[in-house]
């Protein structure tokens, strides 16, 4: 006889990794698909054991060079937004210097895979950072604008409104009310 099965890939992936990581007593959290954050550093022994145990299921731990180009672009943008010194350089030249590809190549690869341009992604990520700073710190909008290199609060508010459809104050009011629920 033949049985037909269907399965939830995400659940299989998470359950499997959870079992293997817990067996080795590794503290972790899931990032975006295919990304696992390990708390602290992993000893060479544990990394080898994890590599071996995952290999049985056809799961391979990627070395830095193998992480897909798109992930590397996204990570580079994260660094760029976190470090004010990096932003003395333009995003396009920063990315091509760091990843050793022409910006045109990076830009095409990014749009083809994510349905979005690098610039749009950067703005989305930047606004995400603004949201985080608004919710989790006591920084004022003026301070946040300065920290993220906006020329003025008006510029920040404008980009926030254009990207999210909400004004920063309405967003904050909703988030505060949500936290009280």
């Amino acid at each position, binding site marked *: 006889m033949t049985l037909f099965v*269907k399965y*939830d890939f995400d659940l299989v992936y998470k359950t499997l990794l959870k079992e293997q990581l817990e067996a080795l007593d590794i503290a972790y959290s899931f*990032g*975006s*698909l295919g*990304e696992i954050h390990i708390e602290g550093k992993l000893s060479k022994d544990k990394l080898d054991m994890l590599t071996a145990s995952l290999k049985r299921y056809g799961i391979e731990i990627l070395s830095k060079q193998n992480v897909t180009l798109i992930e590397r672009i*996204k990570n580079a943008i*994260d660094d760029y937004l976190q470090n004010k010194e990096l932003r003395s350089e333009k995003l396009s030249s920063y990315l091509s210097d760091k990843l050793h590809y022409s910006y045109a190549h990076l830009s095409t690869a990014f749009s*083809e*895979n*994510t*349905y*979005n341009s690098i610039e749009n*992604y950067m703005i*989305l*990520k930047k606004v*995400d950072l603004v*949201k*985080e700073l608004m*919710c989790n710190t006591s920084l004022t909008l003026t301070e946040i604008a300065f920290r993220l290199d906006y020329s003025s609060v008006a510029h920040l508010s404008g980009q926030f409104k254009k*990207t*999210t*459809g*909400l004004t920063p104050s*309405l*967003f904050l*009011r*909703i*988030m505060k*009310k*949500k936290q009280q*629920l």
Partner: protein
Amino acid sequence: MSDKILNIALADDDEDDRMLFNEAIDEIAIRTKLSLFNHGQELMDYLTLPNIVLPNLIFLDLNMPIKNGQQCLLEIRSNPRLKDLCVAIYSTSSSEKDIEETFLNGANIYVNKPNNFSKLREVVEKVLQLNWQYHTSNLNKETFLFRI
């Protein structure tokens, strides 16, 4: 192009709106599979079936008979299996009160139903792109609130 397919559900009691939405989504480059529901109860009955593949994104009309959008949203957010689904409200109402209430109830995106087809296509595409980014990038889901 990526070969992933986005599973999308739409609950709307207006047949014309469902049809237009279907056409709009067909014209977008992102590969999708759309499931349509006539009202909120039909959607909730489907979502609570065991062994289904849950949609990546749900569009909810607010005013529907039997079970309206707000009720569905509350049920989705209080169900451990469904609470992390991305929900976009799709409504003709643009009252601040409705908007704020849906966000407080856990909506991620608030979309005003556009009044022409090309605008509709544009809006749906924007929602799909946002949802795609939230699925594939490291963005904070706690503050996933957008109005389009």
